[in-house]
């Protein structure tokens, strides 16, 4: 078998290489590569945390190192792994899905990637420069003020997140303009694939949320470097202002991480159910509702601050409201599968896994929106369990579904379904072993972010189970990487359209040529490739 070039480049004379590329597919791959690398770093930090907590009164890590490990784990997974992975898929897929040759601003696209990466490198440089930030990923003031965090860790946190955020904001502008102005003839906004819809809404969320984080970071910088008093109670400032600004960013950030994954499974589930998505307009519209609501729920992270009963009640109500549009989507996906001819490929397994795990995370989220419950379990492992059911059980399973689904398009090779099944089931078992017991640990009072606990608490057995689960999860990730590497070397050739799919990215070669399409397609419905393959039963509209 002749070797297939990975990620087709321009002809030899025009080849510019990875450092100077402005091709949306290559930049997408760079983003995904960045996400994978930081996912590995964040995973190693997670394993350190779990190893330290496996038994009571362990001394594997000292408290200072433990604080750095959970801080950098959180920042890494959220801002340097999940967001780049999702942005990478969006970069690669959005122009293909809407029938465009590239994004609106190809050079700006390269700038956003390199800013995002440099932000991550700056954060990690702190390890060499005298210690990583150790104030938690949300870096609450006044703990993050110079008086209580005298090292340089928080300064690297400020600089790294600001630069990374600038890259993310620029990328969101680019993607939004691309979706709004670069669609091929016939691709009305009511016809774009749902992944594109979710990406557009995510871009809006980024543009509304990230600047608030940047502003907060600037203020923290003024406090730390210029002796300011924004978050310094001793100087008249209010520490709670940081929390307001941070969570005004932080809660939309959750949907920035979840909506694109929902978009991914909204592509995967219809194709493997052999049906159009059930209630396209409801999936898209409910996401718009989520986006609006997500800017009005931030203080549910602050119930324990003491804002007052009225404020808490309002934010409790808006937080519960978000469950409605989210539930709408769950029903859409299930209704898509009902009566379909299901093909339980690995991608589909991960998509179904997403639904199951995300429902658990969503329900524990609603329980946390109830103020008295939140007051009882806030800052406990119950919250840790909840957020991991949303971000791992939800987002990461969605990303894996997308990875199995689109890897053949990006590489020209199929991933092994056998290894894929091993990957899915070890992930599923490992994930639930790790995080399900943490609900109980939180409910009985184990606080998050403590480096150890006394044997007399009785928390040892559940923590050990959790750590064993984390080890299984690590094995699952190794299986995935073996699968990817084997497939890149000698995987089955995929062809243009291995899944008999619906959308435009499958109408071009795998991997797609530079500029994507020989001629710009024109579409007449939501499933353009299906229409072309089955003219006798083309979609209405």
């Amino acid at each position: 078998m002749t070797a297939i070039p990975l990620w087709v480049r321009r002809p030899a004379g025009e080849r510019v290489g990875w450092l100077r590329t402005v091709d949306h597919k290559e930049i997408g791959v760079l983003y995904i590569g960045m996400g994978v690398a930081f996912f590995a770093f964040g995973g190693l930090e997670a394993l350190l945390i779990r190893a330290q907590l496996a038994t009571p009164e362990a001394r594997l890590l000292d408290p200072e190192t433990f604080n750095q490990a959970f801080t950098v784990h959180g920042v890494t997974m959220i801002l340097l792994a999940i967001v780049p992975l999702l942005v990478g898929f969006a970069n690669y897929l959005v122009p293909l899905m809407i029938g465009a040759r590239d994004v609106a601003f190809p050079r700006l696209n390269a700038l956003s990637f390199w800013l995002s990466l440099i932000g991550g490198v700056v954060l990690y440089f702190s390890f060499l420069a005298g210690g990583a930030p150790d104030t938690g990923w949300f870096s609450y003031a006044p703990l993050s003020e110079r008086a209580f965090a005298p090292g340089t860790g928080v300064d690297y946190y400020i600089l790294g997140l600001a630069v990374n955020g600038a890259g993310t904001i620029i990328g969101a502008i680019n993607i939004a303009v691309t979706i709004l102005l670069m669609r091929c003839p016939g691709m009305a906004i009511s016809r774009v694939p749902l992944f594109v819809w979710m990406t557009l809404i995510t871009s809006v969320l980024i543009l509304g949320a990230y600047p608030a984080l940047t502003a907060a970071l600037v203020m923290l910088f003024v406090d730390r470097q210029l002796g300011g008093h924004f978050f310094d109670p001793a100087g008249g400032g209010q520490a709670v202002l940081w929390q307001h600004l941070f969570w005004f960013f932080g809660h939309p950030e959750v949907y920035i991480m979840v909506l694109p994954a929902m978009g991914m499974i909204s592509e995967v589930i219809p194709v493997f159910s052999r049906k159009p998505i059930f209630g396209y307009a409801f999936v898209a519209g409910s996401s718009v509702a989520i986006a609006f609501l997500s800017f009005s729920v931030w203080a549910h992270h602050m119930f324990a601050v003491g804002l007052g009963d009225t404020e808490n009640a309002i934010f409790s109500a808006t937080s519960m409201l978000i469950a409605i549009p989210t539930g709408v989507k769950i029903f859409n996906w299930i209704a898509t599968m009902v009566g379909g001819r299901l093909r339980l490929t690995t991608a589909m397994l991960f998509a179904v896994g997403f639904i199951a795990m995300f429902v658990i995370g969503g329900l524990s989220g609603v329980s946390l929106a109830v103020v008295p419950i939140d007051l009882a379990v806030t800052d406990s492992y119950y919250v840790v369990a909840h957020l991991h059911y949303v971000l791992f059980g939800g987002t990461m399973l969605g990303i894996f579904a997308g990875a199995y689904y689109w890897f053949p398009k990006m590489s020209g090779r199929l991933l092994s379904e056998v290894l894929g099944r091993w990957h899915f089931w070890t992930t599923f078992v490992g994930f639930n072993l790790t995080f399900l017991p943490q609900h109980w640990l939180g409910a009985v009072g184990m606080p998050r972010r403590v480096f150890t606990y006394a044997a007399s608490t009785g928390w040892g057995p559940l923590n050990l189970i959790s750590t064993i689960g984390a080890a299984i999860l690590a094995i699952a990730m190794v299986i995935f990487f073996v699968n990817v590497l084997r497939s890149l070397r000698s995987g089955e050739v995929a062809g243009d359209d291995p899944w008999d799919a619906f959308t435009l990215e499958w109408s071009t070669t795998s991997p797609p040529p530079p500029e994507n399409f020989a001629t710009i397609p024109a579409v007449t419905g939501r499933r353009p490739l299906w229409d072309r393959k089955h003219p006798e039963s083309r979609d209405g509209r």
Partner: protein
Amino acid sequence: MSETAFIPAERKPPALGVSLGRSPKISQDRNLLGVAIFIASESVFFLAVVLAYVAYRDPGLATAKATLDVGRTAIFSIALFASSGTMAFAVRAESGRWLAATIVLGAIFLAGQGSEYARLLGEGIGPGSALFGTAFFTLTGLHGLHVLVGLVALVALVTANLRRPGAVRAVAWEGVSMYWHFVDAVWVVVFSVIYLGTLL
């Protein structure tokens, strides 16, 4: 079967970023739409800082009343507000002279801000002195940085126009102008909140 036959009549061909007309529209031109979205996200950024200033207004109000020279800053503000007018003339006529006038007015504003900073720092009021200084220097400083960036963009536009008169695309004029008007509009808010706020 030809699929192109199904293109709905109302669907315009995709914008290619090349504006042939004299006045490109935000809804059709990718560059202008990009600038507009960027400005929207910048607005969130300034909103956060303005809210922080408002939250800390009361403890700093006495200092603000005692030290800020509203009349003097109002004069420099008029220079900045007027620069929006000269910018509009510059875009309409694609005129380098009006552009130069805009740059001069923007520079006058920055000079005014610089002299005010020098005076305040001389009186011992800085970003680290008290809550008022922290909030004042952060908000006005961030705005000043945006004016500076706008001046750089204006100088770039003027230079490009000098080098190849009449060849600079309409979107470049339009895009720089949108950003400049935004910077001006932010100052309307900042001036009202900080300076006019001391008169209340």
